[in-house]
């Protein structure tokens, strides 16, 4: 009996040792594999976020009309981003998108869609705040303020006051902006974008589409986006050279903008 106890008392220690070894080796392995595979274009996706390459069907909900758009409405390449002002990875993507906009200017059409995720308590309000600024023609100014100062307001219970500060800074009529935030038109634009996002089965932000084709998240880098946009621009040029084949992705895409409908 005593001997049996003695032999048993070693067993848990051995198991503990094995588990400790597995934990250390497993942790190290996870660390080293994720270090050796940084975000790169054409890299494998993060586990659990397997991006499906989706295409926007022509009958998808249109979203806010007219959309919040930069660049040229007639550009051959459309970049459409669904994002959430409170989402840190959207905040991280913001400078990438700005860089892309300044690189391509009027050669692309850049559309921002609000897709506030329910787990972010202030992101719906933030989207409405940006739309309300848009009613004074300053959507993009508010958009920039919200993304660049994301950390400052995300955890601030007086976030509306903080935003009012941004509104003043970008030269809004703050009273009108506050009224517009409370009103229905700004909200319905956010809801329209949300509906479009839901219609496309978006479940993560940021989700980026280029000419209606979803860009896998690991490729949402300056280099990754540049590769796709360049290829699409080249495609468009080739299609222009051959007028008998006009049904490119770009043409299909522009069909959803009311000004360009056939």
């Amino acid at each position, binding site marked *: 009996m005593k001997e049996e*106890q003695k032999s*048993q*008392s070693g*067993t*848990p220690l051995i*198991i*503990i040792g094995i*588990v*400790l070894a597995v*934990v250390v080796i*497993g*942790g190290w392995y*996870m*660390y080293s594999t*994720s*270090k050796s595979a940084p*975000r790169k274009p054409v890299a494998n996706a*993060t586990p*659990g*976020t397997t991006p499906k390459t989706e295409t926007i069907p022509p009958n998808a909900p249109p979203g806010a009309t007219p959309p919040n758009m930069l660049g040229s409405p007639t550009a051959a390449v459309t970049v459409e981003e669904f994002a*959430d002002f*409170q*989402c*840190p*990875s*959207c905040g*991280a993507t913001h400078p990438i998108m700005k860089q892309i906009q300044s690189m391509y200017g009027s050669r692309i059409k850049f559309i921002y869609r609000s897709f506030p*995720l*329910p*787990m*972010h*308590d*202030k992101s719906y309000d933030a989207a409405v705040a940006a739309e309300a600024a848009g009613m004074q023609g300053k959507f993009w100014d508010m958009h920039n303020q919200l993304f660049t100062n994301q950390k400052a307001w*995300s*955890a601030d219970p007086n976030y509306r006051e903080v935003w009012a500060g941004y509104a003043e800074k970008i030269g809004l009529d703050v009273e009108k902006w506050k009224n517009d935030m409370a009103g229905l038109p700004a909200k319905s634009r956010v809801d329209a974008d949300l509906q479009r996002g839901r219609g496309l089965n978006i*479940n*993560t*932000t*940021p*989700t980026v589409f280029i000419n209606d084709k979803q860009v896998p*998240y690991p490729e949402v880098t300056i280099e990754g986006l540049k590769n796709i946009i360049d290829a699409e621009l080249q495609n468009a040029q080739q299609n222009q050279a051959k007028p008998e084949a006009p049904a490119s992705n770009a043409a299909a895409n522009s069909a959803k903008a009311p000004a360009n409908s056939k």
Partner: protein
Amino acid sequence: MKTIRVIAVIIALIGIADAVYLTVHHYTAEAVPCSLTGGCEQVLTSEYAEIAGIPLAAFGAMAYFIAFSLALLSIYGNRTAWTIFGVQVVLMAIFTGWLIYVQAALIGAFCQFCLLSAATTFTLAILFFVSLGLRRVSQ
């Protein structure tokens, strides 16, 4: 009685795996998109995610490892181990309660892996109380 401890060992292992994943994530800071189901960077990159430069998840991994060891020792007849296990998981559950408050009230976002950790901690505490109840019944 023994079944409860075996379950506790398994749950603690899940807790270890989760906490190790979060610790590694903290150091590699891999960019992860925000998702409808949670798991957002916001919680993991917040100021509450570390104490004195050490990620909370590392403390979690350590705590789960100790809980695992204690539960395992108790299966092999060490009664004191189970008592220490009980004290530890109750403390962990209290701390976890605070962390849920932090996510809900201070950060305003939830992280799915942190919630999984909360679930494992609460399960361990419940298992301990169930074992106390069973002991009283059997006596």
